[in-house]
């Protein structure tokens, strides 16, 4: 259990791992996440279930190495085991039967949590246009996978090294202005991207689902650290979400809360990298 069966580097900072977890693979649904601890002292970090295979008994995670815990996770190899792997947590996403056409928008590593939802919708015969974006060509992930489940796929990069130069919101605006009608927009990516998307879809009154990623510990509703304000009410993202009605989310509060430990996270990373360097010198 919890063994890494496969490891792939998707781009300079994003890795994919396929984990052996038969029970979870049977229970997982799109929209749910796991909590991982890399080692005995490890932080509890949430990662979306990017794919799962009930028959093979595997769960796939895709993560961006942004700080100490994700970097440490990235050093594990095929054959290694995750110390802890808890899930499936959070509410599975639900779509109304009347949803016939969806616009899916993913930014950066946000394409990973977007993919299982689009895959499910596609299986249910929903027509899908997708926009995926990244800083530059090498940061665009899951292009082939997304293309396979979308009717139309649009790509944007900040520097124009792949697809269109610009932001995902540029394409979003264009598609709407061209007269495309969507029953729903799903947007997953950095908070600022989701906020910008919602600012546009609100104007056109298009229901918009976003996936929130606040700082979590338990992931079961016992700490309240993951609270987000939705429509003026406090919600616990780990049990009430992580998907919410984006038009109602207080993104400014969410951005502020995400930065609460920035200084300490930097320190943890520095100490970790220092230890790695020492280890490197000693070992070789």
């Amino acid at each position: 259990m919890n063994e890494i069966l496969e490891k792939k580097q998707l781009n300079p900072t994003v890795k994919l791992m396929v984990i052996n977890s038969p029970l979870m693979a049977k229970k997982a649904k799109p929209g749910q996440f796991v909590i991982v601890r890399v080692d005995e002292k490890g932080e509890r970090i949430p990662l979306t279930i990017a794919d799962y295979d009930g028959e093979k008994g595997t769960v796939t995670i895709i993560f961006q190495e942004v700080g100490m815990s994700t970097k440490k996770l990235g050093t594990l190899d095929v054959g290694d085991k995750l110390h802890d792997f808890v899930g499936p947590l959070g509410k599975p996403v639900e779509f109304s039967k009347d949803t016939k056409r969806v616009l899916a928008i993913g930014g950066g590593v946000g394409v990973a949590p977007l993919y299982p939802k689009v895959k499910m919708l596609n299986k249910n015969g929903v027509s899908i246009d997708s926009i995926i974006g990244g800083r530059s060509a090498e940061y665009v992930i899951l292009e082939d996978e997304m293309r396979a489940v979308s009717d139309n796929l649009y790509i944007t990069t900040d520097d124009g090294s792949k697809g269109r130069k610009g932001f995902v919101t540029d394409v979003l605006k264009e598609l709407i202005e061209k007269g495309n009608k969507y029953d729903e927009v799903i947007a997953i990516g950095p908070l600022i991207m989701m906020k910008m998307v919602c600012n546009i879809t609100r104007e056109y009154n298009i229901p918009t689902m976003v996936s929130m990623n606040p700082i979590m510990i338990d992931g079961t509703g016992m700490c309240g650290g993951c609270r987000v304000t939705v429509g003026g009410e406090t919600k616990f993202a780990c049990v009430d979400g992580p998907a919410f009605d984006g038009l109602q989310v207080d993104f400014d509060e969410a951005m502020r809360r995400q930065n609460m430990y920035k200084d300490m996270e930097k320190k943890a990373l520095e100490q970790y990298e220092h230890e790695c360097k020492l280890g490197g010198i000693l070992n070789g």
Partner: protein
Amino acid sequence: MANMSLKKVQMPEQDPNVRNKNFKEVALGYEENMAVEEAERCIQCKNQPCVSGCPVHVQIPDFIKQIANRNFEEAYQKIKETNNLPAVCGRVCPQENQCESVCTRGKKGEPVAIGRLERFAADWYMKNKEDKVEAPKKIGRKVAVIGSGPAGLSCAGDLAKMGYDTTIFEAFHTPGGVLMYGIPEFRLPKEIVQKEIDSLKKLGVKIETNMVIGKILTIDDLFEMGYEAVFIGTGAGLPKFMGIPGENLNGVYSANEFLTRINLMKAYDFPNNPTPVKVGKKVAVVGGGNVAMDAARSAKRMGADEVYIVYRRSEEEMPARLEEIHHAKEEGIIFKLLTNPVRVIGDESGNVKGIECVNMVLGEVDQSGRRRPIEEKGSEHVIEVDTVIIAIGQSPNPLITSTTEGLEKQKWGGIIVNEDTLETSRKGVFAGGDAVTGAATVILAMGAGKKAAASIHKFLSEK
């Protein structure tokens, strides 16, 4: 000849100004001679009022007599007959409301220090004896226990002793429930809890961590997997917030989050343990129970200069144990009584910079039997703080009740059980501890676990 001193033999403690900077245990425990001297204060009452004051009926005069006779091992075994976790209860039981509250010696002077003696016997045994538990012969029937707090641990222990194949499913990566993630190291060293858990494992109890029941498996799945009965001991882990403006500012914690970061994730040892916690210079803890005291004293130990307890009633109504209130004061915690927060105030970057409060006066006695606090008009004032910790209570988590068909619950979330058997509205499903009563005590949860184990045995024997 009984020792007729009106006072308990004093328990050695770390100096308040030393201990409020470390997480080591505050109370150091009796030495052998102190224990014997205190045990001699017990006059061996024929009617044993103390025993009826203990929720699990520890045979108090009997074990105390063994201590007086220096038969420490026998004393321990005597307690163990009815109490699975003596080292824990001797430390955290609200003795002043239970066994000690009805002790005959308490009518004039202080009662016998029953809790301290219980702790002594347990500690003595752990230090001097090898725990020689053997796994009993299995009878080949499977029972599932959900949650590894005191309720789940004692239920599983008793079931294992009767030969059931017992598996505990625990959501966290570490078993122990509140004993591990809630009550701080300086009141209940985690090593002690770990020893209790290890001895359960020796009894043959299996513990599967990282299993959130209601998510990875439902209760129906457990029955399908061959478990013939299920005990729910999932506690009351859902934190309450006040619903006042500013509660989502950076620097506002639930006590659960704050204590979990520190106890379970060991944030006091950051960055060696990489989970962070932010404790500012001035901290307000809202609430008056044990949880509030623990949060306040932990904040002080994490380096806060000033820590306030903000409580809307007076000290008399505080639900915390007397000893904890006393310890908190000794450690320099400042009590702002009859004070109620109405708003948390933030700075331009969204960090807490103060908490606006109003003064309260006590009015008529309310349903809870306490005088109801009423707001004093025009008494708004701001306490300057950079961290706010909310400790106003917890309720049961709906993860299980919402995923189990036919499991009846109270409006506030507590699972409804038959009080005699602890069976729920679902056949073969039993429940006890905080999940049923709402936030209560370790000993009550333990008692419920034992009772459920007996009921489960009866249920399965008749099946």
